[in-house]
């Protein structure tokens, strides 16, 4: 089957029921998207499909079709997406394992809702677990990325 990942059409040899996560990681070698739970509970596997945050660990690859998949590797060429910059400014990361998923969730939120309230941030980020407990700085980073966009507009 063919898959559009990060703007490139890729020919993929994988069974239909293989979750997108494992196609990305084991077939295409895009290991930035992480395995954390396998049942859409932790958000480590979050990618964008047509701009929407999706948990790739429970999505059979055959269900993707021609829709565009964006992974952390394709969010920006060099880590310069406003959310990534905010993450760096706020010194968010600790172990870092959940952060690609956190960043993809935050980027999808801000793309759809450039000025989220604190409650909307909480809601959008509730599906992403961080065991290091970086939540406070995540909140600050999402707020500051939103604020920066306001200033730039």
């Amino acid at each position, binding site marked *: 089957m063919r898959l559009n990942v990060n703007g490139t059409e890729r020919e993929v040899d994988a*069974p239909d029921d*293989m*979750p997108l996560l*494992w196609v990305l*990681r*084991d*077939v295409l*070698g*895009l*290991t*930035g*998207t*992480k*395995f*954390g*739970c*396998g*049942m859409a*509970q*932790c958000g*480590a596997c979050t990618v964008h499909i047509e701009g929407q945050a999706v948990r790739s660990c429970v999505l059979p690859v055959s269900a993707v079709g021609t829709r565009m998949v964006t*992974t*952390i*590797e394709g*969010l*920006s060429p*060099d*880590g310069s997406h406003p959310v*990534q910059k905010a*993450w*760096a400014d706020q*010194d*968010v*990361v*600790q*172990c*870092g*394992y*959940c*952060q*690609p998923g956190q*960043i993809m969730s935050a980027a999808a939120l801000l793309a759809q809702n450039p000025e989220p309230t604190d409650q909307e*941030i*909480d*809601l959008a*980020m*509730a*599906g*992403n*677990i*961080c*065991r*290091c*407990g*970086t*939540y*406070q*700085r*995540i*909140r600050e980073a999402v707020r500051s990325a939103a604020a920066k966009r306001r200033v730039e507009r």
Partner: protein
Amino acid sequence: MIAVTRRELLRKSLLSGAGLFVAFHVPRKAGAVSQPAGKPPPDPNAFVRVAPDESVTVLLAHSEMGQGIWTGLAMLIAEELDCDWSRIRVEHAPAAPVYAHPAFGMQMTGGSTTSWSEFERYRTAGAMARAMLVRAAALQWKTDAKRLRTENGFVLRGNDRLSYGQLAVAAQAQTPPKSVKLKDRKSWKIIGKPTRRLDTPEKITGKAQFGMDVRMPDLRTALVARSPVFGGKVKSFDASKAKSVKGVEQVVQVPSGVAVIASNFWSAKLGRDALVIDWDPGPGANVDSAKLLESYRAQAKTKGTVAAQQGDAEEALSHSSKRVVAEYDVPYLAHATMEPLNCAVRLADGRCEIWTGTQFQTMDQASAARIAGIAPENVSIHTQFLGGGFGRRATPSSDFVSEAVQVAKAAGVPVKTVWTREDDIRGGFYRPMFLHRIEVGLDDKGRPFAWKHTIVGQSILAGTPFEQFMVKNGVDSASVEGVVDSPYLESVPARVVTLHSPRLEVPVLWWRSVGNTHTAFAMESMIDELAWAAGRDPLDYRSALLAENPRHLRALKTAAEKAGWGKAAPKGRARGLAVHESFGSIIAEVAEVSVDEHKEIHVHKVTCAVDCGTAINPLGVEAQVQGAVAFGLSAVLQSEVTLKDGRVEQSNFHDYQVLRLPDMPEVAVQIIESDAKMGGIGEPATAPISAAVANAVYALTKQRLRSLPLRLA
């Protein structure tokens, strides 16, 4: 002055002509565990590498698992080396004796010890590298090294300058100085300054490589079916269905179960699901959390092995007019690191290569060597970033590494074992279940004069190589830390602490802040109960009991002030307080809570005051305190592993719940300026949060909750 004459100096290049390497052994104290026998591996060992391309590479003897040493240890080198911070790179060191922990004598990361234990060694490495660069410049300029100074990656003489990169090769030929003088605290330019992490760029772009991300053309993925009951064994198995799954290549039996080896994770998982295994569950099938707790309650009423004693507590209790008796209990807990366990192994040509995220290189190396039948120096460990550790990646039995070597050996191909979340939650190595029974007699001023304390729970160290050092007279120090050394007990004239250490099939392990996870809960809850029983304000009561402990007092006072203690809390909320010393640091926490109409507890704000001695990177200290509070809150509000008929009842994040972002309180961190001996910071803030929240819930509802996770009736 720090004498380095007795240190073994090594100055060999890792890459020939690549520049300056500095490495040396600091004589270790009478260590906890001896290093594996055999001569050091052929790689020279180095802490810092200055290269002609101006890069300065810091080699980490410890593992980065989120705690920030990737940045903190680099700051120590950079402080003394006077290099350009933007040129710093960091790498995990290989597993080798030269990287043994200065205090423990084996290569490991844990016990919140990295920063204080490396404070001298890493600064000294930086200072030695600087001295050799200066000597090389002096030789080139034909001048006295004493006339030269260094700044931001250059050696300077008036207006002349030579870069470290230009000097790197020449510096390598210099004799290392016999001793170096380290900067005094007043001259520090980097230590103590809030510094952003060096591992951020790769961690926000998906480039950071964790063990899970290791890929090689011939590397297979293996999933192991393990006994559903701890200690169970495979009687027989039928692999025919598993082998028919596309992508499955082999099914092999290993000591821990049955491994399915496939070309990818998904095939290995489907293959494992298709296995039919007949297990002999063994005696572990009798373990039942509810019954266990009852048996702990019964044991707590009997005297255990004495851990601390002064005076006659029984006698004193018998004629006290006011007695307070309470029992506190905590469940088993999984670490649930975000990165499930994994380990890649290649066995070839008499060598074993391992790629994994581990906290315990020396133990893993020795264990892999035993299984592979080779010498430890023939085992290479390529430490990857750890997707969380919290103690789980430091097993004395090297469980996940040993198993991976067994699988690779049985399969005859390079494999990466991957644990699913279910494997992780059900895989044991838990924070042990514990019960504390405390009886206290109060004098007429409400002060404790008799204290009888019985602790029941499995020993983490029994049966491990650490037993001989850390279990004294039948008492595992990790079971009683935080009680036997409690400053509250020092002032109680008649006291006794005893311990029961039942042996069970459930594997247990250190979990962020170890024994303090339950001892701080029991001690700080009890002190709060005593304050209320005495009709005193919990802050005043503690302050009176801790009068001889100035660091505790200061932390308490600071946190209380910042939290607005004594002023009314916002409507519907109340505050609770706890202070606890662990890993050499003292942390006071004030929690502000509310309870909703469903009787759910909400923690809105946690105000922390931290005395950890010198804070190398205050930005990192703040992150560790915020994170440790969040980690503790999971256990306070949600997490619990229970067993029924020997089977773990939880399996994934839907039923082993952990803190999520909407429940994260605002955590304010005040770092107290302190010249006390440096303590740890990765773990200590986890310990007091349980009691701080429970005490706040009591202040709000007058319900005293003595079991974790806290649940209102």
